[in-house]
Every structure is written in C-alpha cells, then in structure tokens.
C-alpha cells in the first residue's frame, strides 16, 4: 500500500476547480477539508511557476494553504516575481509539493461535497445534478 502515499491532488489543481452542480454559480474557490496531507519534495521549475502564477487565483491559494497548514505566503504577490527566488520556492512547495491524500472538497454555495480518496477527488455528478 506504499503507493497511496505518492502523488495525489495538489493545491495547483485545487485552485482550478469550480462546482458544476446545475444552477450553482459563483462558487470559486471550493473549500478543502483535508484529513491526510502529504509533502513530497520535487525539483522547482521557476519558469513554470512564474508562467502559472498569472492564472492562479492568489487569495484562494493563500487561504487554501493556510487551511492545510502552510504559512508564510505574503498577503499580495510582488510584481517582480521572477527575481524573488525564495518566494518562488515557497510557491512551488504550496502549489506542487503539497498533496491532499484524503478529505473532501466542499462547495460554499450549494453545500455539495466531493470526497477525495487515495488522492483522487470524485467529481461524478448524479443524474439530477447535471
């Protein structure tokens, strides 16, 4: 069972998810309710981090990482991110090295919960939610 502790949902993809239950709008971000969180150190690619930070919703990322227990992200993202190596490394840890192994994603608007098991969130909807 050792492989259960490898790769699973990272904060980067958690930052891209919205609830798609029929009629539920304006529901970003979903709240992470983690029960098992793993840290897995990988090599930092500054080019990718600066590229993807244009798309990441920063306030949501900051809140999510604090929910999970990663502190130290600044309140606002500096304009010259490319030159701030320390922050890039911190963002890399938050976005790509933090894996939610078990828990759930909860929609604050409609209350729908998406369970995460073995690192894989189950986003399947039922017939009347489509």
């Amino acid at each position, binding site marked *: 069972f050792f*492989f*259960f502790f*490898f*790769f*699973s*949902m*990272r904060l*980067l*993809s958690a*930052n*891209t*998810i*919205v*609830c*798609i239950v029929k009629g539920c709008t304006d529901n*970003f971000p979903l709240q992470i309710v983690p029960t098992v969180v793993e840290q897995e150190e990988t090599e930092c*690619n500054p*080019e*990718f981090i600066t*590229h*993807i930070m244009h*798309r990441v*919703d920063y306030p949501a990322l900051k809140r999510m990482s604090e929910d999970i227990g990663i502190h130290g992200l600044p309140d606002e993202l500096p304009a010259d991110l490319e030159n701030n190596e320390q922050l890039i490394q911190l963002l890399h840890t938050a976005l*790509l090295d933090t894996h939610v192994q078990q828990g759930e994603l909860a929609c604050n608007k409609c209350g729908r919960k998406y369970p995460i098991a*073995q*690192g*894989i*969130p*189950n*986003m*399947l*909807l039922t*017939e009347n939610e*489509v």
Partner: protein
Amino acid sequence: MGDHPFNDLEMSRPEHIAPPEIYYNDTEAKKYAGNSRIIEIQTAMSERAIELLNLPNHPCYILDIGCGSGLSGEVLSDQGHTWVGVDISASMLGVAVSREVEGDLFNHDMGQGLFFRAGTFDAAISISAVQWLCNQDQAHHNVQRRLRKFFQSLYKCLVRGGKAVIQFYPENGQQMEMISSAAMISGFSGGFVVDYPNSTKAKKYFLCLCAGSAEMNYTVPAAKGLDEKDDDGQPSGIQFVMGKETKDKGRRKDGRRVVKNRDWIQAKKERARKQGKKVCHDSKYSGRSRGPKF
C-alpha cells in the same frame, strides 16, 4: 470469425460492450498496465498528439481528457509539462496511481462538463476517449447534449488561442460529423488531421481544435503519410486501385478461382483417397459441365 466481418468490428469496439466505467474494470485496466503493444500504440499516439499541439517553448499546464492509466501523461511529464488527468473509470485511475504518474487525477465523466475555471490550461489532449461519448449508456443520456456540454466546458477552460488535439476512433462518417460539429458550435476552429489515410492499420484521426476567434487564423497541421517518400519507418501510402471489383471477377479474395473444374475435383478426390476416406470412383461424368439450362 473470418467470414463474418461484423464480429471483428464488435471486438474492436469496446464502447459497444459496456459503458466505460464498467468496461474498464480491474481486469481490463490491468491489461493497460501490462500489455506492451497497447503501451506502444498509446505512447506513439500521445507523442503525435503533442506534436500537433505545437506548444510554446516553455513548460505548460495541460489537461488530459480520458487519461486512463496515465500513458499519455507520462509522455507529457517526459517533455517537462505539468498535467491534470480526468477519467471516468476508477479502476484505470487506480492503475495510474500504482504507476506513480506525476499528474493530478480526477474521477469524472466528461459528458457532464469539465469542472475547471475559465482559462486554466494551455492546451488539452485526449487519446482514444471521445468515441465513448457517442454511446447512450443510460436512459437519461442525450448524446448531442453531452457532446456539447463537453466541448463548451473544454473551450471555457482553455486559454484564448489554446489548442486541443483529440484522437479518437470514429465508427463512421456520421460520428465524425457529429463530434466535429459539436466542437464548432462550441466556438472551436480547426478540423481533422488524418495520418496515413491510405493504410487501414496505421490510419489515425486527430481532431485539432483551437479555442479562439477566426482572426487568429488557425490552420490545421499537415497529416503524415500523404507523401510516398515518407521516411520515418511507418508504412507509406497504399495506393487505392480503381475497378478492383471487375478485375478480380471469378476469383476469391485470396486469389483462388470460384469455378471448380475437372482438375480441381480430381485433385480433391486424390487427396481424400490418400487420407483413407470413401471417395466416389472417377467416370466420364466426373466434373463434366452440365450444359445450358432452359
């Protein structure tokens, strides 16, 4: 089975057997992990799909729709991209987890629409998955609506000008038309790239799409295998022979004659005699033509 062409057809179309989440059970999913031929084909198609994406020269964030056991994702990881995979089969995702793929995995039905924020991904690929959408697996499924929902949500989650390459096995022209028109209605521009169109085995369909307005002038990349001098080891085009039917009249597919004359009958009888079977004796009537009928 050989003389029943539909049998072969059914065998190669798993989507006719059961819905994907049921067909790809633990047994079928294991085949994907262990079968080197499947791995080879899937990897080659993924490489081609990524080539068709024509990605910019930096690491990208890519969506893999119908990622299955993560074979296409591994190609993406090898090229330095970060990816997210979506699949309906929990068993296939289980295989992906045990293979320790590097992407994030989600269990989801693409026909319900993707759940990503607008402008999330640089590009998207899908290998041998979209044909599953054309089946009505449940009573409440509406194929057209599911296709539209999929393409609309795909369009939304790509950046402007982001590309999607969708490889699939169309069952017929109607299905190709249905899928591509659903994509066009959703705002995509682009079209089909058919690699090795003259070869039955190597022929592959890639639907190349661009999420952007017409001013961006997206032209579909060129297909492989159109030129006879293709030198990358793949079978070059097999020429289509006009009038094949008339030329081969009186012969079977394998070249044998349909008419059985006296020589053929005697050779057959001789063979049977050698095997010790009871055979009618030869006479002047053996294998004689019956003459004209009224």
